[in-house]
């Protein structure tokens, strides 16, 4: 079912400058050439009846309901498949057309249940609407004959055509008895999602929709994106929430709080209750598509585990005590003041969240800088994309991706490095797959055979299956080929880049030690493959690089980002559509939290705290003296806590005890602090070590903005009241006031106004303007009043592009006899990050535990079978998971996800980090894997500790 408020024009819009004029029912209308008659009519205000057509899909022409008459043409062409021509004269309603349409509808209805009043689609059923529109008054055929409607024939025999409901998917129901075989679901799966899980099985009256090889939906290849459910014109595919709750009565546009794609959604509501989430067709990042998380996995927002009252305790071994907001806020303020009085001004700090809004993040860093009087503020981007900020700033001058997502429509060569878009950024993954199906070439650089390497109608031209930790060596080898084979775009480099830095880089990268042949043994990638891939990237037309945490989360993360920027500059693949350097951000607001000055060394807009002019502007606006030296980064905070100099931490929406590496080190740091304040939806892993819990609110309960991976600022809109009484920004404001630093914002829009005043790249941004334009890509200011889809067009933000030297320094994390395998970590489609949200939804149907993926060869050597318990041991710690034997892995490399706290994936990861930013080296840990019979010692301790903490929470609830 489509959104309750969107207008469906039947066929997609056509982008062209050429227009034609035609006449429909006597009305003259001018539309882009290539537009269908159906769409042109719709734009003229005439709605031609239709069933198989929807503007989310290409025209199909099967239902025969949208027929029209065209002057000078024979017959009754389908308006959906007929393009407009100059001077065309169309009649959409004649006696003959009415007769044909009634006949068609009569046939449809003769094989459709007449339970409209109790049908989930009632009130928004396209079949019902069309029956009304064509004036169907009788069905002469009766229901005694062959049909798909009834389980039994009229003689009481089993009806061979009838198929019972499929309720295997936790989020939607497939009821084949209501299917009109319009193929909209099948086409949505192909065109929109690109999974090709659905098909029409059989011919003629036998035709039916089938998932994979006639499997139940849950057992099929279906990824539960919901595009089919959205496309279905009847109740054949319906959200279970719609079945339970009935039609929504209003619709609010907001932005998804999961990954960095930042899909725009319409929350379709009844009062404060969400009936369904429908991706917004006008959404600039997602164009009406979504994934299983954004559309369906929102149950966490109303999960009973949510804690909606503040709680306090003296020691983490004490039971929690429920407190009023006044008491909790006063307590935090007095504790932080006490700590600063006793241990000094720099003994406290804060962590902002990439899951919170820009406005909330801005306030937390303002509280730390202006209220605490230090710069001890950091964000979880530290542990994911801080190297992106460093590397892109150093080379191009701005800590952000260069393109919008739609840029890929003009890409000829897609280079994916250390990213798995079909799992981690699924909606953009679908867009990428669409472009690849249309013929763009694909190079994948990844230790694993990710889905993109071979997926329906797509095969990577080159898969450089490198050994984890050798990204920089591979990037240098690619650069070597480009430089030594004369593939540099000399014209671009001469005009756009610093000549001295380029010459130095050219000499450096042309050294024999960087050649594909010299690095082959180290990287594991055959030299010929590197050479071919480099040639394709440099000469294949518009080439765009997409990368993720497989690039950044290494000891050389920043070096690799600079290596990527070097490649793009050397080949002139910067500054226009179809090219560029595109970091795929992990969480919804990673880009925004970085933009908002969450890093300890930078004010909003990536300006160093040591810059006196910038600091003066903030001092003037905030009315306080600001510290001019960088503060502690998250890993430094842990070190300082263990050291005894860092005592108090305000954490908004982060779960460092699960997400940060070397868990035992993190928890030791938390235990060493005197006042840990956690603001979150749930008593997460970190909150088990907290002294104060402040209830947070979900994205549905507050106003604000998120900034996605393409620098796109989109609105988050409140659809229900905060369950705790306060939105997160209000909590930070209360805390600031209690600390003696006044804040008096009445609405998040006022916070954005302040951000805009103080940040040159945001000068033109306001809530009103975002609402007016739908979304804005920063920079948005006097020079770019409507935002900037593509950056560095005529010149780089820093003026000239700067090539950086990128020496390959092998990680100190090496395999040896004790730890002969490399562990690398990542995420999967159905779960998100630490899983706090998705674990509390039916998404566990797809992934109910983290498994260790291991190559059959490594498994056999260790006597490991599918499903066996295996111990994974590194120099940092040990944990136990069940094994999954998988040829996606290369021998010598094992993989796991970190979505469940009990898995202890980060018990194994080490303190190693990126040289420039301290971003942890999550992707390379030397481990040994053995068959075991019981959980690890850490897991036993974790289980006991979690049980104890649950008891302390239960005590609070009953007191």
């Amino acid at each position, binding site marked *: 079912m489509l959104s309750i408020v969107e207008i469906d024009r039947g066929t997609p819009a056509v982008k062209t400058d050429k227009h034609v004029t035609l006449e429909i029912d006597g009305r003259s209308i001018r539309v882009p050439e290539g537009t269908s008659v159906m769409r042109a009519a719709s734009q003229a205000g005439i709605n031609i009846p239709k069933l198989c057509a929807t503007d989310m899909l290409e025209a199909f022409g099967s239902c025969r309901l949208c027929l029209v008459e065209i002057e000078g043409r024979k017959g009754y062409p389908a308006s959906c498949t007929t393009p407009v021509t100059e001077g065309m004269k169309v009649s959409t309603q004649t006696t003959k057309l009415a007769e044909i349409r009634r006949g068609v509808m009569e046939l449809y209805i003769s094989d459709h249940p007449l339970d409209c009043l109790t049908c989930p689609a009632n009130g928004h059923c396209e079949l019902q609407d069309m029956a009304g529109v064509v004036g169907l008054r009788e069905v002469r055929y009766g229901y005694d004959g062959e049909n798909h409607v009834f389980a039994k024939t009229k003689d009481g025999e089993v009806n061979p055509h009838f198929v019972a409901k499929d309720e295997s998917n936790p989020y939607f129901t497939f009821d084949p008895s209501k299917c009109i075989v319009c193929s909209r679901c099948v086409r949505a799966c192909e065109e929109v999602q690109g999974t090709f899980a659905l098909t029409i099985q059989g011919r003629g009256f036998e035709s039916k929709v089938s998932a994979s090889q006639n499997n139940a939906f849950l057992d099929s290849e279906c990824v539960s994106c919901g595009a089919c459910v959205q496309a279905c014109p009847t109740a054949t595919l319906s959200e279970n929430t719609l079945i339970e709750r009935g039609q929504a009565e209003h619709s609010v546009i907001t932005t998804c709080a999961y990954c960095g794609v930042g899909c725009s959604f319409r929350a379709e509501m009844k009062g404060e209750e969400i009936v369904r989430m429908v991706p917004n067709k006008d959404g600039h990042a997602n164009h009406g598509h979504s994934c299983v998380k954004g559309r369906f996995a929102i149950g966490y927002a109303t999960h009973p585990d949510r804690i909606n009252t503040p709680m306090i305790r003296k020691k983490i071994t004490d039971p929690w005590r429920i407190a009023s907001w006044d008491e909790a806020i006063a307590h935090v303020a007095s504790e932080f003041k006490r700590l600063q009085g006793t241990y000094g001004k*720099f003994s406290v700090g804060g962590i902002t969240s990439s899951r919170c809004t820009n406005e909330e993040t801005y306030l937390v860093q303002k509280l730390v800088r202006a209220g605490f009087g230090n*710069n*001890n503020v950091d964000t979880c981007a530290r542990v994911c994309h801080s190297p992106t900020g460093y590397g892109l700033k150093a080379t191009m001058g701005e800590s952000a991706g260069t393109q919008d997502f739609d840029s890929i429509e003009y890409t000829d060569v897609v280079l994916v490095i250390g990213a798995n878009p079909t799992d981690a950024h699924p909606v953009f993954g679908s867009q990428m797959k669409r472009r690849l199906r249309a013929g763009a070439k694909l190079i994948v650089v990844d230790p694993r055979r990710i889905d993109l390497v071979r997926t329906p109608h797509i095969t990577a031209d080159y898969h450089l299956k490198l050994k984890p930790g050798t990204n920089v060596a591979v990037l240098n080898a690619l650069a070597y080929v480009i430089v030594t084979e004369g593939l540099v775009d000399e014209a671009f480099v001469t005009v756009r880049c610093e000549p001295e830095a380029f010459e*130095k880089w050219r000499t*450096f990268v042309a050294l024999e030690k960087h050649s594909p042949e010299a690095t082959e043994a180290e990287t594991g990638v055959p030299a010929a493959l590197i050479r071919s891939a480099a040639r394709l990237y440099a000469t294949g037309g518009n080439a765009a690089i997409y990368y993720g945490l497989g690039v950044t989360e290494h*000891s*050389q993360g*920043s*070096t690799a980002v600079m290596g990527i920027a070097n490649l793009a500059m050397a080949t002139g693949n910067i500054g226009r559509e179809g090219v560029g350097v595109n970091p795929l951000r992990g969480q919804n607001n990673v880009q925004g939290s970085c933009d908002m000055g969450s890093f*300890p*060394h930078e004010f909003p807009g990536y300006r*160093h705290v*040591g810059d006196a002019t910038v600091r003066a502007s903030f001092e003037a606006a905030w009315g306080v003296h600001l510290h001019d*030296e*960088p*503060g*502690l*980064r998250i890993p*430094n905070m842990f*070190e*300082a806590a*263990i*050291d005894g*100099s860092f005592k108090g931490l305000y954490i908004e929406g982060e779960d460092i005890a699960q997400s940060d590496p070397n868990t035992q080190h993190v928890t030791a740091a938390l235990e060493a602090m005197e006042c840990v304040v956690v603001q979150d939806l749930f008593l997460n892993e970190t909150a088990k070590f907290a002294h104060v819990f402040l209830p947070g609110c979900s994205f549905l309960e507050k106003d604000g903005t998120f900034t996605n991976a393409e620098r796109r600022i989109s609105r988050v809109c409140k659809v229900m009241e905060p369950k705790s009484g306060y939105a997160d920004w209000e909590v930070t404001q209360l805390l600031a006031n209690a600390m003696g630093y006044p804040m008096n914002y009445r609405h998040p829009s006022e916070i954005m106004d302040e951000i805009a005043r103080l940040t040159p790249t945001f000068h033109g941004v306001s809530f009103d303007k975002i609402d007016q334009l739908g979304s804005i890509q920063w920079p948005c200011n006097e020079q770019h009043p409507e935002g900037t889809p593509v950056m560095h067009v005529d010149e780089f933000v820093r003026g000239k592009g700067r090539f950086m*030297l*990128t*020496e390959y*320094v092998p990680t100190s994390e090496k395999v040896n006899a004790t730890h002969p395998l490399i562990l690398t970590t990542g995420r999967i489609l159905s779960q998100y990050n630490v899983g706090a949200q998705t674990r509390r939804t039916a998404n566990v149907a797809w992934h109910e535990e983290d498994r260790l993926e291991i190559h059959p060869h490594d498994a056999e050597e260790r006597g490991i079978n599918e499903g066996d318990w295996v111990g994974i041991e590194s120099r940092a710690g040990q944990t136990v998971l069940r094994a999954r034997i998988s040829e996606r892995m290369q021998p010598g490399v094992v993989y796991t996800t970190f979505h469940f706290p009990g898995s202890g994936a980060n018990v194994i990861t080490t*303190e190693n*980090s990126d*040289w*420039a*930013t*301290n971003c942890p080296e999550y992707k390379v840990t030397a481990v040994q894997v053995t068959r075991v019979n019981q959980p690890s010692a850490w897991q036993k301790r974790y289980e006991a500790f979690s049980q104890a903490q649950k008891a302390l929470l239960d005590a609070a609830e009953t007191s």
Partner: protein
Amino acid sequence: MNIERLVAMANDIGRYFASEPDQVVGAAGVADHLKRFWEPGMRKQIAAHLAAGGAGLEPLAKKGVERLVEIDSKLRA
């Protein structure tokens, strides 16, 4: 803070700048990086460690910390 960790971090920075042909420029790069990204307490600690002999610091990292000490002391003067 754990001085071994700080030394390891300084060495990581030094190894990046090692590819710089001019070691004076390399040392300046290390010093600038430490100045821009390390909290003053950490800088003070690594400086003290250097004064005590700088055990474990690799040559370029060591030169970088020396340069950092000069910058920081100039600022204080």
